[in-house]
């Protein structure tokens, strides 16, 4: 149903609520940042476990990844938000959301890092050993620099997914972009489309700038300048 006062008032609901959108935007950004840092650290640790020569660590890492990647993020949220309080672990909804997002994306960071390490040609390590480099030297001077380059793009995809997945926190009481947009559609029933489009634009700003950053990093770090 179009707004009764004509076309321009369609965006009034957006302009009148810029503050609300800004708050939602900042909260989405913070959720993404906190969860991304945690997932990056835990995911790298898990990847180390999975490539280590110690079988129990490898199994533990593999089990974690298999369980988490086959479980919907919403179910992870349910565990964090509804089961943890049952054993008297209570945080704010924001912290709960960061925990759920970190737990979930850790598995995907792990797989991206592992794929990056495995993607380095075996000949590289063999050549390094043939030259007499020790294991730490091989890793530090030959493998990791190349693995890092391989990993940028997959980690970028995980990061983009993480930003988009923060929207699920809206269903668990966090007033981030999606939650804010949904609230405004209820308050301004005649401007639903404009409000949702504004929310969509905010997400595109975040995901497209991440994609641009990843592209830039890839070009800078390319072995052969493109």
């Amino acid at each position, binding site marked *: 149903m179009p707004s009764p006062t004509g076309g321009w008032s369609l965006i009034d609901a957006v302009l009148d609520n810029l503050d609300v959108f800004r708050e939602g935007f900042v909260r989405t950004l913070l959720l993404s940042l906190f969860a991304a840092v945690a997932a990056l650290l835990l995911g790298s640790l898990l990847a180390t476990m999975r490539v280590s020569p110690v079988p129990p660590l490898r199994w533990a890492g593999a089990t974690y990844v298999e369980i988490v990647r086959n479980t919907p993020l919403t179910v992870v949220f349910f565990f964090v938000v509804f089961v943890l309080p049952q054993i008297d672990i209570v945080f704010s909804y924001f912290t709960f959301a960061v925990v759920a997002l970190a737990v979930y994306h850790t598995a995907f960071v792990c797989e991206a890092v592992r794929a990056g390490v495995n993607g380095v040609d075996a000949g590289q390590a063999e050549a390094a050993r043939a030259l007499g480099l020790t294991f730490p030297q091989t*890793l530090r001077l030959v493998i990791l620099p190349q693995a890092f380059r391989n990993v940028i793009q997959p980690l970028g995809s995980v990061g983009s997914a993480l930003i988009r997945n923060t929207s699920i926190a809206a269903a668990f009481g966090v007033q981030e972009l999606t939650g804010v947009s949904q609230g405004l559609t209820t308050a301004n029933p005649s401007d639903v489309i404009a409000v949702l489009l504004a929310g969509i634009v905010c997400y595109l700003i975040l995901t497209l700038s991440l994609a641009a950053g990843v592209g830039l990093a890839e070009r800078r770090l390319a072995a052969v300048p493109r």
Partner: protein
Amino acid sequence: MSLVLADPPGPRGRRRILIASLVAAALLIALVVLAMLRLADKGQLDPELWQVFADEPDLRTLLWEGLLDTLRAAATGMVLAVAVGTALAFARLSRRRFVRGPATTVVEVLRGLPLLMLIFFAYLGLPELGVNLTAFWALVIGLTAYNGAVLSEIFRAGILSIDRGQTEAAEALGLRGTQIFTLIQFPQAVRRMSPTLVSQLVTLLKDTSLGFVIGYTELLRQGRSAVEFLGGRYALPIYTTLAVIYIIVNGTLSLIARWLERRQSARADGPARTPGDTSVGDTPAELVP
């Protein structure tokens, strides 16, 4: 590919690995025991809680119906997403810029958006334009829009990976652009991309759980209703059951994906491993959350 980071361990190295294994195993077991003690301490492991499935036959029916609704949404979404993905991939590979340009924009925008926003758009926004949808169709449209864009990228990559000689041969035989796409490129691309396609189905199936936000009665929603009805104490047993159901269904699909992948890499370049390497595992197909 696997990586040979170090020489095979000698006697001393093997002893060190054994000690590290014992320590790691002890730590991991201690962690599990601690978690269990905490759960038991808070009464979360009472047999009465976990017998709820035996005591309440209605609960089993409820979850079973939820699973069927989940599978229904996933199947419908997948079929439509494959159709949309094919069309978008075809449009993006078009020689005409006015076809390629808009298709590229649509794909980039859809891939950059949260699925939940797309579902809200279908559920709250489309009625404004005079299209009223049930929760099922709002969910399916959201799933189709997002996964259609993702699949179009998968198909496009598959088509671009096919040897140019195929196209040239088809052109030499006098086939036209559309014919080359539908008869030569697309069938080969689908075959090559089938593992990725199945992995994407796992993602789609997981995403159906977002239906609970708009009140579609899929598995998660039914579980939530059960917990609300029985009381918060039942959160752990019921949500654990839900997780196990998702893991079984998705785990089966993941196994199929891996089997397809192995079959293809076996066909493409023979045995992937040489004997005696201290391998660190296979490179997984790119996983996107």
